[in-house]
């Protein structure tokens, strides 16, 4: 088995960002560097609409890791080669044989060579180079069958002058925008399946995400808090370090339980969460709140009630899953690695606070009426003052 010595990392739509392009490229390179560094020594640089990474070891693991970084379209673990045709042919043969040995698919495999000549001083044009290499390395029709329209295996050759490489593998990335290029969001993390997925989707669009969670000790124990921390850590794998604010919420829940109409409890709890989250966002510079709400999923997520939960906000509330089915959220949670944690049976809100029959189509005036009797300003001040702040270490070194 031969070891790749360079990772060719392609990015998608951020190439279109015009004047901002350099900033986006630098952000992406920085995020890739932060993601790869825990795996070993690596140099990362931007080069001609590509990012190139040079690992000293564990190149394949680094390629898989780079393919998780938002903004990345695809990653190829590649093999560098000199600029003359014979060397390219030799290297191509070696890489192809290695790829064939490791490929379990039945033979013959449909195959093509695709070459790209960015260096115009190279004597052969792209299509001629591809044809020349293919002609000289094809092992025989029982192994590979040339198919230029629908190949299963593609040998790529890029000739860029001082740097040329060949590769076979192409690991798809998640796309999106580099984390940090769209600003900062504050995600309300509940311990359920949806909110970590909402955080992940927001990161995908370039937001750096911090987390806030509401905790009713001693109605709930430390294990609920530990689960929240673990969820924040798991999803931060995709962005780097973050912060988690854990807000003591007992006084709010007891106050609402004792003073407000039972059916409105859940909506009123959530309106307070909105207010407290906004206060934190204001202090910490988050441009938007993020929630995992999905239209119609539970009583508090009807159009009416989401509107009521929205109303006290002084900034945008992003709900990336608003139109998603539960199954879609579950599938995403599974693929990003948060499902198992979310499924752990750990209460996120104690049943003793839940109304027997929550209101489904709440009215603004009833909320406002109930809230006039509540010490909301004190609650918000207390929450922001007394909240615990956890540094969430995603396992990555800081960007």
């Amino acid at each position, binding site marked *: 088995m031969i070891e790749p010595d360079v990772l060719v990392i392609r990015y998608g739509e951020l190439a279109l960002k015009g004047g901002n392009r350099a900033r986006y490229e630098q952000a992406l390179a920085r995020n890739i560097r932060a993601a790869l560094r825990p795996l070993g020594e690596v140099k990362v640089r931007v080069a001609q609409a590509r990012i190139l990474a040079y690992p000293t070891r564990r190149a394949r693991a680094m390629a898989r890791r780079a393919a998780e970084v938002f903004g990345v379209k695809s990653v190829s673990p590649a093999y560098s080669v000199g600029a003359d045709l014979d060397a390219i042919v030799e290297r191509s043969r070696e890489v192809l044989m290695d790829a064939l040995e490791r490929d379990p698919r039945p033979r013959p495999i449909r195959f093509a060579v695709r070459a790209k000549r960015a260096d115009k001083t190279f004597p052969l044009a792209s299509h001629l180079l591809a044809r020349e290499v293919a002609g000289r390395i094809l092992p025989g029709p029982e192994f590979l069958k040339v198919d230029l329209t629908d190949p299963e295996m593609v040998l790529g050759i890029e000739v860029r002058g001082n740097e040329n490489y060949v590769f076979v593998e192409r690991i798809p990335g998640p796309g999106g925008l580099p984390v940090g290029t769209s600003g900062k969001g504050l995600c309300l993390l509940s311990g359920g399946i949806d909110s970590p997925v909402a955080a992940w989707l927001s990161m995908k669009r370039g937001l750096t995400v911090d987390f806030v969670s509401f905790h009713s*000790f*001693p*109605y*709930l*124990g430390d294990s609920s808090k530990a689960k929240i921390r673990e969820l924040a850590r798991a999803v931060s794998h995709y962005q780097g370090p973050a912060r988690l604010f854990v807000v003591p919420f007992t006084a709010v829940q007891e106050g609402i339980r004792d003073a407000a109409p039972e059916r409105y409890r859940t909506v009123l709890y959530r309106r307070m969460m909105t207010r407290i989250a906004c206060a934190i966002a204001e202090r910490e510079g988050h441009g938007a709140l993020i929630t995992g709400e999905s239209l119609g999923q539970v009583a508090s997520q009807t159009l009416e009630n989401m509107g009521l939960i929205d109303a006290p906000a002084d900034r945008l509330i992003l709900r990336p899953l608003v139109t998603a089915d539960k199954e879609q959220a579950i599938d995403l949670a599974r693929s990003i690695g948060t499902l198992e944690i979310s499924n752990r*049976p750990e*209460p996120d809100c*104690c*049943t*003793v606070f839940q109304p027997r029959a929550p209101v489904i189509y709440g009215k603004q005036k009833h909320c406002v009426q109930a809230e006039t009797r509540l010490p909301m300003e004190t609650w918000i001040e207390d929450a922001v003052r007394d909240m615990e702040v956890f540094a969430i270490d995603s396992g990555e070194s800081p960007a």
Partner: protein
Amino acid sequence: MSEPAIYLDNAATTPVAELVRIAMAPFLAGSYGNPSTRYAAGVRASEALGEARRLVQRALGAQKHKVVFCGSGTEANNLAVLGAARARKAGAIWIGATEHASVRRSAEAWQAEGGGPCRILPLDGQGGLDVARALEQIDAQTAVVSVMAVNNEIGTCYDVARLFAGVGRIAPGAHKHVDCIQALGKLDLDLEDLGADSLSISAHKVHGPKGAGALVVRSEARLQPLIFGGSQEGGWRAGTENMACIAGLARAVELAVAHQDEFQRSAAACRAALETGIEGLAGLHVRRTGRAVDAILSLQVPGAPGEVWQHHIEAMGFEVGVGSACQARTAEISPALKALGLADHEARQVLRVSFSRETKPAEVEGLARALRTLHPRLSEVRP
């Protein structure tokens, strides 16, 4: 919470005793030998292993029997139940209604692999074993009978000796196993007196390290090993011996048995302290279940679910266990509580308070005062 909490969940685990730590220390430092090797370091390890085995045998009066060191009490139970069943090729496994999952799941695995059915022994109205009825149901085609000596959630003592005497007459070929993991240090455990073929113990329930258990088993018992490899532990449990944990287990067992009488007295005093301390609080009482040890108490609470009580108690500086989780999402109600005939909502309102020989009655009085403080607030909460 600045002061360390007072720990009253000793049926879950216990703190490691200083003397146990001292017994373990050499094997985490200079004494690295593998007891299967023949040079000096190995021979010393082999001698230490033999010494640990003798300590356990002496403490449990099991000099004639084998002691198989395992990775946990769970493994010891697996080895006894599944290992004995497999050695018999076919037949039913009878288990108690409130057995620990390590026994229950082993019997279910036996059923799933087609060896024979998993059957549940009947209880009497007090939560004890109904031996007479059990003996009517068990037949000669029985491979294994496995019961616990003391229940881990409610402290009930089961009449193992009477059951096993009857089983011996009806199904002489059956392997009779008793799970003594909670009983160790609380009751006299003697394979002969119990009429058992094997008994399991666990170190961390008696101030020993986690990750250490043992099966005391008659030399002539038929067991198939579950872990394959070298010939350690007489071929019944392969794998290089965990010397530190084995040394810790042996010392912990020795201490548990040596302090048993003393612990019985202090546990009775602790129990009395709790019962007296909560007298007159509506809906709050220690659940009585026939014959039971004083060290494991089942506390019925009113109003809020057990878990809410647990966290409020924690906030006042006491750690207690909970009988069954409070949320619908964790819907599984403990089989032990169900076997007592508790309704689901009652089972969600059960706390477990359990003592170790380090627990002092004054600490339990403190818990009773905390319960008294919380009672007005939490007994009014809708469950």
